[in-house]
């Protein structure tokens, strides 16, 4: 039998290169590249038309005629200083993430399940889901449901982000069912959208109040590091607030590379935490955490904790 030493590196390179070329040629023979390109250009033409039509409409005026938009259309005027220019959402998100990542991992572990913070994040997840549904209904009506399936799949992925609170999951799933019903019957899209807008407003107000409560809870010198990102979020326009809070939740769950070797994990809920091979766990916890974890798809060394007896309750 031939040993691996019999094959020089150059031969391997030549062989893989030849094989790669043959593979590409074989795949190409099964494709209609022009048809694929036409599919993309045609699909995106819908978006261009929508964009064009949108430019001709005063959406806020139309929306105001239907619902009370006072709570959901925050503008510069909302800030006491009329000259205040709110920073871009990505800048705010980056600032909040940076503040959270400076917290010690044990603090992050406590925060991610603190009822006040978890409540805000759960509402934010439900709020972003309701926004997606409203957008979906708008696009579905305009495109005659052409993209319904794709967007519904995106929504499913959104729901799979690891909701920590049953109430948020229930709200989002209820919206999903209502949407499925509307789609199945290809009617009542306007009514579904009106209901979704009502719920969106309610979630927006609930989230603002939840953030106020969280600020009251943490607004003291000892908790300044937690209060600061919350204060930034409270000042953030509500159009961006929920999305950034969801990012904050993801950041709290991210313990990739963190050192938890000295942290007491007894009764700490760990479900949903992402970790990596260089995350340091207390020695007597590592085996159980490995048993309770699964790989994050598309990665080789990032894992997520799913269930496990130690994740059920926390004192």
């Amino acid at each position, binding site marked *: 039998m031939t040993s691996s030493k019999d094959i020089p590196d150059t031969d391997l390179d030549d062989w893989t290169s030849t094989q*790669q070329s043959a593979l590409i040629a074989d795949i190409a023979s099964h494709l209609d590249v022009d048809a694929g390109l036409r599919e993309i250009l045609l699909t995106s033409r819908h978006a261009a038309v929508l964009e064009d039509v*949108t430019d001709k409409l005063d959406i806020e005026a139309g929306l105001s005629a239907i619902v009370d938009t006072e709570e959901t259309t925050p503008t510069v005027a909302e800030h006491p200083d009329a000259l205040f220019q709110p920073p871009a959402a990505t800048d705010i998100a980056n600032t909040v993430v940076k503040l959270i990542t400076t917290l010690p991992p044990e603090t992050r572990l406590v925060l991610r399940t603190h009822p006040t913070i978890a409540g805000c994040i759960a509402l934010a997840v439900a709020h972003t889901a309701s926004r997606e549904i409203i957008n979906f209904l708008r696009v579905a009506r305009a495109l005659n449901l052409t993209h319904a399936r794709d967007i519904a799949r995106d929504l499913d992925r959104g729901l799979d982000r690891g909701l920590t609170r049953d109430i948020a999951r229930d709200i989002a799933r209820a919206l999903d069912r209502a949407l499925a019903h509307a789609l199945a019957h290809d009617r009542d899209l306007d009514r579904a959208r009106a209901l979704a807008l009502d719920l969106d407003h309610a979630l927006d107000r609930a989230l603002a109040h939840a953030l106020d409560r969280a600020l009251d809870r943490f607004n003291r010198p000892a908790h300044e590091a937690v209060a600061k990102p919350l204060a930034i979020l409270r000042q953030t326009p509500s159009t961006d607030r929920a999305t950034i809070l969801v990012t904050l939740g993801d950041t709290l769950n991210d313990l990739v590379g963190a050192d938890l070797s000295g942290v007491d994990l007894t009764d700490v809920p760990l479900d949903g935490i992402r970790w990596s091979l260089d995350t340091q766990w207390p020695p007597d916890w590592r085996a159980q955490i490995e048993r309770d974890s699964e790989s994050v798809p*598309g990665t080789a060394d990032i894992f997520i904790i799913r269930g496990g007896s130690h994740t059920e309750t926390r004192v």
Partner: protein
Amino acid sequence: MDEHDRSDEPQPTLPATHAAQDAYRSHDTEFSDFYRHSIVPLIGFLVVLGARPADAADVAQETMLKAYQDWNTITHPKAWVRRVASRAWGRHMARSHEDPVDQLPEHTSLLHPASGIEASGIEAVEQRHTVLQALATLPLRQRQVMAWTFDGYSAPEIAKELGIEPAAVRSSLLKARRSLTACLAQEGGPE
């Protein structure tokens, strides 16, 4: 290295009204050129990662649609589509695992109608190429590194894309090459 890589300078925003038809045409021409050059290598990249060829075609097409929509903000489209397609394939795998019923064939028009899921179509590609059978024996990280390497990326570039250290890339590459060599030797070596 990448003939389609573009300047890092901010790209102009796509005009939103029909008054800028010329800008749309230029946008479409540039994207179409990229698509024609890149769709097949992108599918090959996903197949090397471990995707079934028909799934790879679907994921590549979805990725190209996103690339078209975000074209003005993408500075390195060749790397961008590989990065986005890798993640999309990961999500596709997770969905397939959770809901196998959702695997009903409904492929993009990119595939010739005869290709579908028939073994005589694009899926037969998997059986025809020894390199794919050899790659299938590697762990995911090593396949990732090989896929980027096949497409001309260096260890530091791959490290950046995968979010790992260049040394880890080199180590994975070395292990992958050793395994491939052993695998091929068992089959009589490269022809």
